[in-house]
């Protein structure tokens, strides 16, 4: 999951920004957002059966 989020964040950050520092910042924020969102959604779905 984290690997997938890494690749998606990397590509989007490089597409959206031209400056490498900005790319790093944007990519990092996107990665953090993806991972946190995945954990939060996972726990929200936890009570519901398969």
């Amino acid at each position: 999951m984290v690997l997938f989020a890494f690749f998606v964040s990397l590509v989007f950050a490089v597409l959206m920004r031209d400056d490498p520092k900005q790319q790093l910042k944007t990519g990092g924020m996107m990665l953090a957002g993806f991972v946190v969102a995945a954990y939060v959604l996972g726990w929200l779905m936890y009570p519901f059966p398969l």
Partner: protein
Amino acid sequence: MATKSTTAERAGAEPGRLALVCGLAWLIPGAGHLLQGRRQKGTVFLLALPLMFAIGLWLDGRLFPLEPSDPLVFLGAIANRGIGLPYFVARMMDAGLGTVTAASYEYGNTFLMTAGLLNFLVVLDAFDIAKGRK
């Protein structure tokens, strides 16, 4: 008058150049950017997207056939082909047959399809650069 003919020449040459940039950008991830001097972006896409595709194959994902009777499979097939040359190399090597019973099957499918879809976005970005919008 010189400006008009220059503009006309530019407009006439443009579709061919655009097609070349987009075609190359699709076939080789990042090539469209490299062709236009965006080396940092092109290199990242050249490395990241085929790697993502390779991880999808390693995770036992499947390269879907173009099956019009099954819309979701058809869309998955379109997404798979978005990566360009790595797709054809994988097919030649008989990779991407998919192991449905593998625990990582769906993860592999996701990696394979997303790599292709991200390359479509990269092609669009290369197109914008070629048009002078970026």
